[in-house]
């Protein structure tokens, strides 16, 4: 599979009053053409920062990309000129965000926002400009595609007049109106209730399949990732700690963090709620040396405090990689 997006050793720091937060500590990731990839990790582990770095929308300052490469079809996004990045956003990359209400402008109607999105993203690629009528027709069509009921009436509504599910459908319409090759969905259903979650995810994956796009699905729900992705990355405190085909990862998790994460999911069989993982995500101002997970790890060895583990191949497949000294052979 040819890689569409390749992130190599990405490092991002945030400057705050007390010093510099070392948030992304060398992130590596590959997304293939048409591939469905999951990214799982606790809140605050750097998932959103990774996505924003790829889209080049990190607020700099306070953020600073201090190292690494982000290759899109072999070209480094971090070295691109603003015009090249803008054209990438029109039709190549797009994203859906966690909170649809915050992601929609509160003082413009849905139709108004969708109109501009379609107008500007269609104007770029040397095509003739769409007429007002055509843009409106496309707005209604993209809303319908996401399963929006009554999409014509929705156009004249403001975001606050819509339900959570409808708002997220509007965001998906905006994200997909330019038929992106790579869609990054940053916890798209976290703020929705379970039934709506299922609907939205189903429609989203159908849309992505239809357009043959790649998707990076970010979630802290393991169930969602298990059902919708082919490969999954586990992230902890600004590092990728494990990557494997989804079914391998769930069958045979290798990293102590992944194991603990899978164990902490409450079971329907009524064994009670698990204890979770002891400790909490580290302070990025002075993150632990070596493996960032070692203060919370039950299998801590002396080397874990000193050296950062590289990726070791583990399990039955060459595609299963773990950043843990336990798997060093």
């Amino acid at each position, binding site marked *: 599979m040819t890689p569409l997006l390749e992130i190599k050793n990405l490092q991002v720091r945030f400057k705050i009053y007390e010093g510099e937060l070392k948030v992304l500590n060398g992130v590596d990731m590959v997304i293939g053409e048409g591939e469905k990839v999951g990214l799982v990790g606790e809140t605050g582990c750097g998932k959103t920062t990774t996505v924003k770095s790829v*889209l080049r929308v990190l607020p700099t300052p306070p953020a600073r990309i201090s190292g690494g490469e982000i290759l899109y079809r072999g070209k480094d996004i971090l070295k691109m000129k603003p015009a090249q990045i803008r054209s990438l*956003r029109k039709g190549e990359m797009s994203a859906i965000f966690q909170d649809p209400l915050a992601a929609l402008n509160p003082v413009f109607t849905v139709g108004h926002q969708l109109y501009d999105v379609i107008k500007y*993203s269609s104007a770029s690629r040397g095509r003739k400009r769409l007429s007002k009528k055509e843009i409106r027709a496309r707005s209604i069509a993209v809303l319908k595609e996401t399963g929006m009921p009554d999409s014509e009436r929705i156009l004249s509504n403001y975001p606050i007049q819509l339900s959570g599910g409808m708002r997220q459908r509007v965001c998906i319409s905006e994200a997909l109106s330019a038929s992106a090759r790579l869609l990054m969905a940053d916890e798209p259903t976290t703020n929705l209730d379970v039934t709506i979650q299922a609907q939205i995810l189903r429609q989203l994956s159908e849309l992505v399949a239809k357009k043959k796009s790649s998707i990076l699905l970010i979630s802290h729900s393991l169930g969602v990732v298990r059902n919708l992705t082919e490969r999954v990355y586990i992230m902890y405190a600004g590092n990728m700690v494990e990557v494997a085909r989804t079914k391998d990862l769930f069958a045979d998790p290798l990293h102590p963090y992944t194991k603990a994460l899978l164990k902490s999911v409450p079971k329907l069989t009524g064994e009670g709620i698990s204890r979770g993982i002891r400790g909490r995500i580290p302070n990025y101002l002075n993150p632990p040396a070596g493996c960032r997970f070692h203060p919370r790890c039950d299998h801590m060895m002396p080397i874990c405090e000193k050296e950062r583990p590289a990726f070791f191949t583990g399990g039955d497949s060459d595609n299963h990689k773990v950043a843990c000294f336990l798997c060093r052979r």
Partner: protein
Amino acid sequence: MAKYIISRLLQSLFVLFGLSLLIFFIARVMPGDPARVALGSLATHEQVQNFREEMHLDKPFPVQYYFWLRSLLRGDLGKSLYTRRPVTTDLKAYIPATLELILISFIMSLVIGQVTGVLAGYFRNSWFDGLSRLISYIGVATPAFAVAIFFLLFFTYTLNLAPAVGRLSLAAVPPPRITGFFILDSVIAGKFGTALEGLKHIFLPAASLAVANIAQEGRITRTSIAENLQKDYVIAHTVYGIPRWSILFKYLLRPSLIPTVSVMGLAFAYQLSNAFLVELVFMWPGFSRYAVTVMLNKDLNAIVAVVLVIGVAFFLVNVIVDIVVSFLDPRIRLQRTGG
């Protein structure tokens, strides 16, 4: 939208009623017999008594209020003791001069304040932001009359760029009165030379009044732009391919204007009574100067009229601000009318 405006106007009728009651009450509790004050100390007891009956001053307060309100609605506010003319005639002469002045000053502060505010917010913590912050502090801290004197010294006496005083030069013939705004009336009458003359005269006083507002409004806009820049929707608009200028001057400016509009409205009404020192420096025959003069002369009818005008001005500005804000922010409009 129309529904909201109508309900807002109906609400405001009550405010106007309250305002009229308040002013009537103030006028009646002021020390001194209004009949005696009006007729002077030489009038006989009988004359005062007759006057009292004639003006219904012997009746109970509610009846007095009725007659007062009736004459007010007819545009009769009594005679000024100081100018010896009907108060409404005075108001007609002075209000347009000040209104024209603060309107021009309002436009200046709107344009300059918003542009610097947006740019300072967008390039926050840049040299431009720092410079505009420094100038703002100076602008807010300097009283308008000091700015006026400085402008007069610099632009008129040193550079000789602008005329010193008045609305027009002495030789110029004022345009036929339609609105009372010299510049507008001149344009209507087709006298563009006079309009230009008027613009030259109004520039310095309007700019003196505008300085503090430019500083304040610019800072407020800067703050809300800087704050809104962090919002998710700005990132979303960027990712979805909306160009930077459109985000800045449309998607970001509109929500950021909401706090500024309220401040701008109040600043506008405030200047009606507060342009006094600037009007004095530029010898501008305006309402502010009139207001201070009649107060110093204890000119009761004129004081009532002045208070009324300022009250109504604040009231109108509030209504306009509410309507503009509800236009900018659908959340307010939708909540109040429940739809």
